[in-house]
């Protein structure tokens, strides 16, 4: 009896908080068939927002993947003073509000700061432009790859790498042939999480992009701007597209999650 009560409470809670709201948007979007959805997403503004989103997310994922693997190797395979502190700094972005991220970047890279002024004199505009949006996205998604790779590297141990060294393999060879195959699922998991976070970032990008329509507008900013301008079909269509990306991400991570793989769960 108590068992059934708990089950009903849990299911009803998730249903009303999560499932029904998302389902309603999808239903509203596709209520009049696929044509309005396709039309709303192929408008020049929407296509431009897609391009901006993909560009920013692409660079951010690339940067955080390279950093993530490097930092994970550093944290697991090397000993140095201040290791715990480095780990804590890597986790720090998770606790920072996206708006504060945006403010922080403006203060350092904005036109009126010393560094921002210097960069601008070299012709590089960071804030209100793509580099700033990439920086903001890198900031918010920074720990994801590192935290996915570290536990697997720890479990893997370095016996095989050492064996490869004694057999004359170079550092690069042992990385490509031994380490990388060993961490590939965890790395895939981290990259998918990082990509989803990057595609969906709103707050930090809203601050540093200046929200210039058809210039620095990402897909999430497009959703907000269209909604505020009473263009519900376009806002719903873009939101549904983003929600579909989120669902696909979820299924991917389910497949890739290291824990589930080893359990065969």
């Amino acid at each position, binding site marked *: 009896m108590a068992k059934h009560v708990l089950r009903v409470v849990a299911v009803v809670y998730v249903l009303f908080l999560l499932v029904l*709201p998302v389902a309603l948007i999808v239903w509203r979007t596709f209520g009049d068939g696929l044509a309005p959805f396709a039309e709303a997403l192929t408008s020049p503004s929407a296509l431009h927002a897609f391009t901006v989103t993909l560009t920013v997310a692409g660079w951010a994922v690339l940067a955080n993947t390279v950093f993530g693997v*490097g930092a994970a190797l550093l944290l697991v395979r090397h000993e140095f003073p201040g290791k715990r502190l480095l780990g804590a700094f890597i986790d720090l972005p998770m606790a920072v509000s996206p708006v504060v991220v945006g403010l922080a970047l403006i203060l350092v890279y904005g036109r009126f700061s010393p560094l921002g002024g210097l960069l601008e004199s070299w012709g590089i505009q960071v804030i209100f432009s793509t580099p700033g949006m990439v920086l903001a996205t890198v900031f918010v998604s920074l720990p994801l790859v590192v935290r996915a790779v570290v536990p697997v590297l720890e479990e893997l141990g370095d016996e095989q790498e050492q064996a490869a060294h004694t057999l004359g393999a170079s550092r690069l060879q042992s990385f490509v042939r031994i380490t990388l195959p060993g961490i590939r699922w965890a790395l895939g998991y981290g990259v998918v999480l990082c990509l989803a976070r990057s595609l969906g970032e709103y707050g930090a990008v809203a601050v540093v992009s200046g929200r210039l329509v058809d210039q620095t507008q990402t897909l999430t900013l497009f959703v907000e701007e269209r909604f505020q301008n009473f263009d519900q079909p376009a806002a719903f269509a873009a939101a549904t597209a983003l929600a579909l990306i989120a669902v696909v991400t*979820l299924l991917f991570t389910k497949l890739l999650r290291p824990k589930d793989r080893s359990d065969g769960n």
Partner: protein
Amino acid sequence: MTREVTAITVRPVRRLAGGTAAGLGTAVLYLSLIVLIPLAAVVWRSADEGPGYFWRSVTTPDAWAALTLTVGASALVALVNLVMGTVIAWVLVRDRFPGRAVLDTIIDLPFALPTIVAGLVLLALYGPQSPLGVNLAYSRAGVVLALLFVTLPFVVRTVQPVLLELDTEMEQAAASLGASPFQTFRRVILPNLIPAMLSGTALAFTRAIAEFGSTVLISGNLPFKTQVAAVNIFSQIEGDNTTGAAAISTVLLVVALVALITLDVLQRWGSRRG
């Protein structure tokens, strides 16, 4: 057998070799340019005009209202998560019913869904055009709802693994000694779960005080009523008052830091018990 033992004991401790130093240098430079220097700049800017200005920025009526609303709503949301997260984790681990696997998968959806989309979907079901006839738009209840949405997975995902590991033999022993189901839960299960429950709650709280995107649409950002701290910071940045924005940001950073330190203490306490 011997091979396994060596695998554990031989953990080569390398000296700060050239490779380590170069890698460490690069990692620290990357972190500094993107995270550390910018965050330091926020704290630095907040103190720019002296402690008096800092205090006045934080205690302007609208900023103070936003901060108290944020902390109050986040505490409430953390509390709801403490209970509901544990219930959901319990159902996922101990109950068997069709659709359980689906429930288990979609719990993570708030992590994958962009926050602005979260706000939009909530507004569709609980806004002015609600098919249920429930309109929470521009109300504090709407803010709480948005925060509940984005923090749903935290407690579930910290409690679930602990419940999975928990041995049911202890419960059976308690039951065979005449304990009622409630007594078994309180005396046997709950003490094992509390550290994980509190860790998840602390994470949910930190996430809630930082939240921006999901609250933008449903709250309507009415100062003194539904404006949360992150939105207040945003409007101050738009109004070119970066020093005031930095002051409120610093308060948020400090609250998050305190919550995270508490979390760390809780985890150590948990691992000592476990």
